[in-house]
């Protein structure tokens, strides 16, 4: 493999690990759709970067932070996450159509061309993975306690911290591998892990392993056949989800 592919391989690896973690938390809260909303909000931030005069990555994080702030308010209604998703999607495509650099950025977000990733993406994702690895185990326990024991609700600060971490990681990943690939990496490994793992720690390991494996397979297949990475990854994950469905156990103790 040519050395120019080392950085994309690293960025994708970091994205796969961080997204698997995020997906577990979102699934725990029955908010998997928020993964797509946050990825799309990050995409909106990237597309809006020329308007702000910012670089694309900080602008993506700004878009995600704005979504993280409004999401708890929107999620009070059953369709709130869909409102967020449609709003970010619509605004993104309008900017893509009307800004000179919009088409190039929009194409990156749709295709998920990991091969154009830059060092700042890898650094951002490495920071995201570090934050997720340190904070998400404890925060996931808080979420589980709140869900199981309603007399132990989570503080607003912890709740908001979770939103910012999830939104930030999804936006960083979407900037590297595209919106739909980021959503698929958050959604499918967590979905499979929830069905097959016998305990929480096993679900974490299984989701991380599945995300990493899917990324590596997609990376080398896309490279070999000269295809865009995002759609290849998304289809591989979809096949994994469909293939694993009949294997799910449903036995009583």
């Amino acid at each position, binding site marked *: 493999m040519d050395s120019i592919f080392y950085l994309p391989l690293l960025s994708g690896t970091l994205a796969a690990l961080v997204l698997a973690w995020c997906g577990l938390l979102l699934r725990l809260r029955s908010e998997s759709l928020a993964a797509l909303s946050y990825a799309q909000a990050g995409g909106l931030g990237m597309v809006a970067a020329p308007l702000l005069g910012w670089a694309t990555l900080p602008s993506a994080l700004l878009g995600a932070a704005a979504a993280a702030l409004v999401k708890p308010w929107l999620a009070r209604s059953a369709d709130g996450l869909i409102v967020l998703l449609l709003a970010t999607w619509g605004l993104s495509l309008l900017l893509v159509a009307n800004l000179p650099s919009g088409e190039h950025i929009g194409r990156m977000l749709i295709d998920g061309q990991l091969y154009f990733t830059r060092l700042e993406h890898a650094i951002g994702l490495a920071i995201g993975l570090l934050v997720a690895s340190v904070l998400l185990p404890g925060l996931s326990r808080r979420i589980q306690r709140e869900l*199981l024991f309603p007399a132990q609700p989570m503080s607003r600060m912890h709740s908001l911290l979770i939103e910012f971490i999830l939104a930030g990681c999804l936006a960083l990943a979407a900037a590297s591998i595209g919106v739909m690939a980021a959503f698929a990496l958050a959604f499918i490994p967590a979905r499979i892990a929830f069905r097959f793992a016998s*305990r929480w720690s096993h*679900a974490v390991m299984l989701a991380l392993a599945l995300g990493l494996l899917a990324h590596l397979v997609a990376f080398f297949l896309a490279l070999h056949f000269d295809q865009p990475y995002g759609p290849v990854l998304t289809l591989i994950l979809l096949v994994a989800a469909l293939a694993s469905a009949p294997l799910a156990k449903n036995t009583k103790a």
Partner: protein
Amino acid sequence: MPNNPEPLLRLRRHAQPLPAFAFELHSGEKLGLCGANGSGKTTLLEHIAGLRRSANIELVMRPELKISYQSQHPPRPLGWPLSVRDYLQLAGLAPSVLPESLRGLLDARCDALSGGQFQQLALSVTLGHAAELILLDEPGHHLDPSAAQWFSTALHHSRAAILVISHDHAWLQAHCARVIELPAA
């Protein structure tokens, strides 16, 4: 009846929309609440647990009172990879709080337990906390005779004050020092 004359809590429900009533609960006392559907039993327990505020309920509790509460339908982690061991860890309890019948299921997923087994697990956690006041909302759901026997014994040995709701008047009479019937609208 308790030695400490100062009650753990005093509660008064003012009239409107439901009829007024009041009671006190002392340390270590077991008090049963029954009443028709809609008489406000669950609302009352949720108010004491701090999960709901009702304007017509006046509550005075001993400061820093440690409360353990189990709702009528304890949240169950369905479709979620959580083992019985995980559940206990999240509750901050050791497997020793479990009845013998559940100790062999520590590594089973909670959503693989039967309704009765999960109810027993939830009750083990609620009773296992070192609380001064335990609030139980219809805890006898789904329990088979042996689980019901285990629950009766656990309730009998508990030193906490217990406020328990049930529609089974005979069961309340057998397990509680006092039973109060909430007046319906």
